[in-house]
């Protein structure tokens, strides 16, 4: 299968952030190869899967659990995947399978301990997670992150993968198993809602409620 043009786009090099490539078709075949090798005991192959999917798992979890818990749960997700690798029937679906493991871990986390409404108040965890990397913009950054995390599930996950993890839409689709259409809609609508949250009183053309 030929790769699509949009799978080869580099993201905003001026930002100096990690360059990402969406590689749905070759990536899927490589995944299958690496999954098979890992099943045969090749730890290096599993390490490659980790490097390819760690940001996706991190983003999925960051959308659902307090920041301070995310890194531990990322590791838990990969350890669980490692243990259950032999049960994965469609090796090319590794990404979607792994995303489901991550979402289930997040759900388990909330069932075990934390009321969901603490998500938006967890500034202490935010601070711990920032460590020394947080600068003067820590306040706005955490506020924006909380605004993203207050969006509906599908939007917050997709937007975090795009805005935090620096993945492109095609790459999000390739990694999570979602369709391009779903990802695009989630990004578009999620961004619309995020803008509304961040700019609650824009001078837009939206009709107001006053009698003219």
């Amino acid at each position, binding site marked *: 299968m030929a790769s699509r043009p949009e799978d080869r786009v580099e993201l905003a090099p001026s930002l100096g952030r990690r360059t990402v490539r*969406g590689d749905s078709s070759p990536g899927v075949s490589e995944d299958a190869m690496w999954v098979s090798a890992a099943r045969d005991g090749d730890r290096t192959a599993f390490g490659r899967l980790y490097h390819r999917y*760690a940001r996706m798992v991190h983003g999925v979890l960051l959308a659902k659990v307090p920041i301070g818990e995310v890194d531990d749960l990322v590791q838990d997700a990969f350890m669980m995947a490692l243990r259950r*690798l032999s049960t994965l029937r469609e090796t090319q679906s590794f990404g979607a399978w792994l995303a489901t493991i991550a979402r289930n871990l997040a759900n388990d986390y909330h069932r075990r301990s934390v009321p969901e409404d603490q998500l938006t108040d967890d500034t202490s965890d935010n601070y711990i997670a920032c460590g020394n990397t947080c600068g003067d913009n820590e306040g706005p950054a955490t506020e924006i992150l909380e605004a993203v995390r207050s969006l509906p599930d599908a939007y917050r996950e997709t937007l975090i993968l795009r805005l*935090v993890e620096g993945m*492109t839409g095609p790459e999000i689709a390739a990694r999570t198993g979602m*369709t391009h259409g779903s990802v695009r*809609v989630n990004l578009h609508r999620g*961004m619309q809602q995020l803008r509304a949250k961040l700019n609650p009183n824009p001078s837009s053309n939206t*009709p107001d409620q006053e*009698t003219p």
Partner: protein
Amino acid sequence: MDTGNNQTENKPLARRDDYLWDGSGEPDPEIQRLEALLGRFQHDRPAPVFPDIAPDRRWAFIPGRMRLVPVVATTAAAVLAIALVTFLVYGRKTVPVTVVGWDVSRVAGTPRIGSNVISGKETSRLGVGQILETDHQSRASLRAEDIGQIEVEASTRLRLLAMGAGLKRIALDRGTIHTYIWAVPGQFVVDTPSAVTVDLGCAYTLQVDDSGAGLVRTSLGWVGFKLNGHESFIPAGAACATKPKVGPGTPYFEDASPEFRAALARFDFEDSRSQQRAGDLAIVLGESRKRDALTLWHLLTRVDEGQRVLVYDRLRELAPPPARVTKEGILRLDQPMLDLWWNELGFDDISVWRHWERSWAGASTPVREK
């Protein structure tokens, strides 16, 4: 209803999102700012040390034990025989296992799929052709990973009609559902006895009473209501009623004045004489606020020619039309001009709906129960 301009109308939307989608196109400064701020939370931990992986020996073990083949074959034959007998004895009583469908979990009481009661914490599957019913004390929750979630209230009956790659369709025969949909706009469709509801947004509540009359209330995004060419667009905060044999009424914001809503309901569903209709239309126009441009835009196509100019004048006062929209064009119901004016109202881009109409022309009529 196809305007012929749909492709050109869709392009600006796509171009606007190119940077958000894949970083191409003209950079959006706000998104760049968000990327710069949020990038600090990006994953940056090195890979942990993974334990040794025990090789999967499922296939390696077979060649060395070929002598076990007769034993395995005999065992398999025995299992098959038992399965066959079980099927013959109990097969007719067993609900067929469906692969495609919605996961159903009990919220309260004893919801049923067909005759099977969903109890405890077990998750059941609602397959195509099956019926989910709740009694006056039961509630249930449906979820499908790629589509969304539906909360089913008490005294509700719904059927799953289709679960294809492109169109997901259920029928709400009676009761109340709250839907939160993340499938692509236009893919999730709910039939009611008096209209078809098309998801173009995210969250809405749909009620159908025993007479088949319905009410949709949108809380997020927007929803299309359609029956045989009669269509209504309902954005967040608005509602729209529908009646058997009439179809969707005119949508309205729920914070409109009681006089406005009462007159609109009479205009949509009760008035039979032109004098009554004129009186109620006058109340609607007189009570309308800027926000009620939603209602007036819909009324343009629902009033007679003599009344249309009144609606046009009031709508123009509330929300001036864009430059390319003329009074003459609106009075002759020029569809591209109507669409352009709608887009100016600030609810959402109507091209999403037009795209759905082209793709699913056959989905605008409810599927009859067999």
